Structures are given as structure tokens and as C-alpha cells.
């Protein structure tokens, strides 16, 4: 075992890397950049998936939306009574929510109505809102919403324009904690009555119905029963939501794919350059080594060490840079791909997730390929006779 790792061969390989100077530096730079770029994208994606998966289990088991001609319309609140008759359904909540377009800033707010005086909502709001006050009817807004409202001089209240053109003034009672910024940035929570008034939703109607089921095993059966009961309704189960998360980045996949293709293409150019043969100087070096009595095995080992040093160094450096770029600097430039161009951008502070699978994937996509691309041409030359190579 001791004889297998020859220290002198490693020293020769290090000398060879240093001797090549700018060429080694160039390969290390490109390799590092590629590794860093690929890893950074994987890091961002993983962190976002982790963020989404953190909350997915808290979602209602079934959401029921009414449709007409495949377009969403309000649902009758009395449908809840029919749903409660289905065995296994624990509760049904008529939800009122929607989007309010604030023309001045060109942004959409998401308005969600809650039963204001229910104790459970007050307790929850108390935990997620900074300095919450529950004196009278008002609203709780996300950090982004607050910023946009402040820029339009709405610091204490906001005037919503109702469908009939009248103004509905609602006081700002609190701002959601910045720790929930990724979820709450564009959200406004207020009483159901206020949301109904702003959107012009009748008392007998709701945006959708949230169905809670005690036994998760019964979700599929109950969703089938609901579909039969309301043929034009759209039944969204918790699993559908999870599936939609699987495809959540499809919208941006074009940009991802472009980045990935560019990265791979650049890397393959380097590999092609290596595979297409050694330079005459390198061939001469192999020939001289053989003439001095080096075995094919020794030459291949020295080339293996040489490529391992270069690729491993670039890989480690790339990973270190990617981690710092994504989690310490919050991915400047790359984050714009994810957060769109709206003025209502959330703080892009994603949680650190150490995903060994990603690190292994990037490792096996880069280091072994590079080593192979170095060793194969060397083997071709090393198997020739020394005089043939030098000549």
C-alpha cells in the first residue's frame, strides 16, 4: 500500500502543474467558475424547495374552487353544509381572498380575509406580527406592502378603491415579521367583511372552501365524492399542491436550461481540447520520461495526480465561492432570475441547506471527467515507443 502512493510522483506532478503556469491557471479559473455557477444554482433551488416543503404539511387537505367555462368564480357558502354531510370531513371554512392591483406602484397585493374576532386567529397573528394591536378593525401587512405604501405616503392607513368606485379606508395595525418575508411580503390580512367590501363579494359567496379531513387516508375518496357532488368544481388536494411544487421552477426552466447548457458546453470545450491530443511539448516530455526508464504506469500515475490536484482544487474553490455567493451575499444577479421584476421584491434571504447529494452530483459531473480527459491522451502517447514519440 505504501508503495502505491509514490511521493516523488506527486512532487513531479505538482512541479508539472506549476511549470505549465498560465495554462494551469486558466483551466483552474474556468473550472472554478463552472463549478461555482452550477453549485450556486443548485443551492438556490434546494433552499427554495426546502422553504416550500417546510410549510406544505400545514396546508388544508382539500381546497374547493368553483368554475364556469374553466374560469374561477365565487362559490356559494351554503355548499359547505353539503360538504359537512360527507363522512370523514371534520370542518369546512369559507375563505375570502384575492389580488388587489395597486396601479400607482404597478404591484399586486394578496388580500386574505380572516374571522377577526376568533381567538385562534388573534393568537396566531400575535406570533407572526411585530407589535400586533387588536384594538379595532384594521389590517396586517407584509414588509414589501408596507414599503410600497410608505412610498405612496400611506403610512398609517390605505385607501382601497372598491368596484363601485368608492374608497374604503383601512388602518395599518402591524407588519409581519421579517422572518416570514418570503411568504408574507405581498400579503395583507384583514377581516373577511373588509375583504368582501373591497372586492365586492356577496355575503353568501366565498373565493373557495377549505375542507379539513381527520384521516389523511380518506383524502382521495372524499375528493372523489366532492367531484361527483360538484361536477364543475376544481378539487385541489394537498398532494396536488406538492406536485405543483415539483414543477415550481418550470416557469424559469428556460433560463436554468440556458445557464446549464452554457456551463456544460464550456466544460466540454475544455475536455475536447484535452481529448484531442497532447501538445508536441507534452508528447516530448512523455517520450523523455520513457527514455529515462519510466514505466507507462508511472507516467499515468503522475498525470492522474496532476489532473486530480487541478480539478480537486478548482472543485473545492468553486464550492466555497458558491456557498459564500448564495448564502452570505444573497446571490446578486442570479436572484433576479427568481424574483421577477416587480417592485414588490422580498428579501432574498434563503436558508442554508447542506445537500450532500448536490455536492456529489457536481463532483461527479466535473472531477472524474476532467481526470479521464487528461489520462486517456497520455495513455495513448505513453504506450508508444520512446524514440517514436520524441521523433
Amino acid at each position, binding site marked *: 500500500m505504501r508503495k502505491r502512493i509514490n511521493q516523488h510522483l506527486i512532487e513531479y506532478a505538482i512541479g508539472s502543474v506549476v511549470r505549465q503556469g498560465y495554462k494551469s491557471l486558466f483551466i483552474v479559473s474556468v473550472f472554478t467558475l463552472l463549478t461555482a455557477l452550477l453549485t450556486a444554482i443548485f443551492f438556490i433551488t434546494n433552499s427554495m424547495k426546502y422553504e416550500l416543503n417546510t410549510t406544505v404539511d400545514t396546508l388544508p387537505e382539500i381546497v374547493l374552487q368553483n368554475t364556469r367555462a374553466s374560469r374561477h368564480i365565487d362559490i356559494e357558502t351554503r355548499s359547505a353544509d353539503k360538504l359537512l354531510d360527507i363522512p370523514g370531513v371534520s370542518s369546512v371554512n369559507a375563505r375570502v381572498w384575492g389580488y388587489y392591483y395597486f396601479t400607482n406602484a404597478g404591484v399586486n397585493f394578496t388580500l386574505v380575509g380572516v374571522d377577526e374576532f376568533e381567538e385562534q386567529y388573534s393568537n396566531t397573528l400575535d406570533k407572526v406580527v411585530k407589535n400586533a394591536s387588536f384594538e379595532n378593525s384594521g389590517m396586517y401587512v407584509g414588509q414589501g406592502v408596507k414599503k410600497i405604501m410608505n412610498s405612496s405616503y400611506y403610512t398609517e392607513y390605505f385607501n382601497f378603491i372598491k368596484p363601485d368606485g368608492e374608497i374604503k379606508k383601512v388602518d395599518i395595525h402591524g407588519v409581519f415579521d421579517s422572518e416570514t418575508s418570503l*411568504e408574507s411580503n405581498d400579503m395583507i390580512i384583514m377581516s373577511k367583511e373588509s375583504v368582501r367590501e373591497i372586492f365586492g363579494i356577496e355575503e353568501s359567496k366565498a373565493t373557495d372552501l377549505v375542507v379539513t379531513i381527520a384521516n389523511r387516508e380518506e383524502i382521495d375518496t372524499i375528493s372523489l365524492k366532492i367531484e361527483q357532488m360538484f361536477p364543475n368544481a376544481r378539487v385541489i388536494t394537498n398532494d396536488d399542491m406538492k406536485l405543483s411544487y415539483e414543477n415550481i421552477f418550470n416557469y424559469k426552466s428556460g433560463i436554468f436550461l440556458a445557464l446549464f447548457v452554457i456551463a456544460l458546453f464550456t466544460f466540454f470545450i475544455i475536455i475536447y481540447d484535452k481529448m484531442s491530443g497532447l501538445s508536441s511539448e507534452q508528447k516530448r516530455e512523455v517520450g523523455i520520461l520513457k527514455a529515462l526508464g519510466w514505466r507507462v504506469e508511472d507516467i499515468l500515475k503522475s498525470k492522474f495526480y496532476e489532473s486530480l490536484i487541478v480539478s480537486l482544487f478548482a472543485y473545492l474553490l468553486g464550492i466555497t465561492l458558491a456557498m459564500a455567493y448564495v448564502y452570505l451575499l444573497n446571490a446578486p444577479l442570479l436572484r433576479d432570475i427568481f424574483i421577477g421584476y416587480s417592485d414588490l421584491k422580498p428579501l432574498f434571504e434563503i436558508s442554508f441547506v447542506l445537500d450532500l447529494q448536490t455536492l456529489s452530483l457536481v463532483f461527479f459531473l466535473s472531477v472524474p471527467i476532467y481526470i479521464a480527459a487528461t489520462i486517456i491522451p497520455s495513455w495513448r502517447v505513453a504506450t508508444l515507443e520512446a524514440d517514436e514519440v520524441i521523433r
Partner: protein
Amino acid sequence: MNKKSTFVFYIFSTLTALLVTQTLYLSSQESMKASAQEKKVLFVKLTGLPDLALSSDSAYIRHRSLSFISDIYHLDGCLREYDKSTYAIENSTVTSIN
């Protein structure tokens, strides 16, 4: 070991130490804390709307898990194109027949 080898050894050691230190620092400082996780869970439980507030450009893609596909590829609240790729959809032969 000669000078070059010692130098390379030190470079690798420094880089590995830096990577490990950075990982440990990020694990302790930048990981999702239990309090933050609890708040996120409570917030999503309260609203029932789980999607991240990243794409708030258009109402139709804000809560995409509760959106229709036909809504996603559409226009914004003021009927302006909201996406750079809208030209590809709007000018396609499939949608511009009439």
C-alpha cells in the same frame, strides 16, 4: 517534501479549512431557525396560501398552486404584458388564428 509540495499542501489545507469553517458558520447562522420555522408554519396555516412571494409581478402567477394554466399565460391586472416571453405566446400561430 520539496517546497512546491509543501506550498500545495498548505493551499489545500487552507482551502479545506475555509470550506469547513464556512459550512459550520452557515449551519449555525444562516440555517432556518426553529422560531422562524414556527412563524412560517403559523403564517401559512393562517392564510392557506403557501407559495413564496417571489413572482408577484402578476396576480395570475402569485399563488400558482391555486392558479389555472390559462391564467398563468395571460396578462397582468392592467392588461399589459407581464412577461418578456409573452410575445412568443401572443404571436404564436396557435393563439393568433382569429
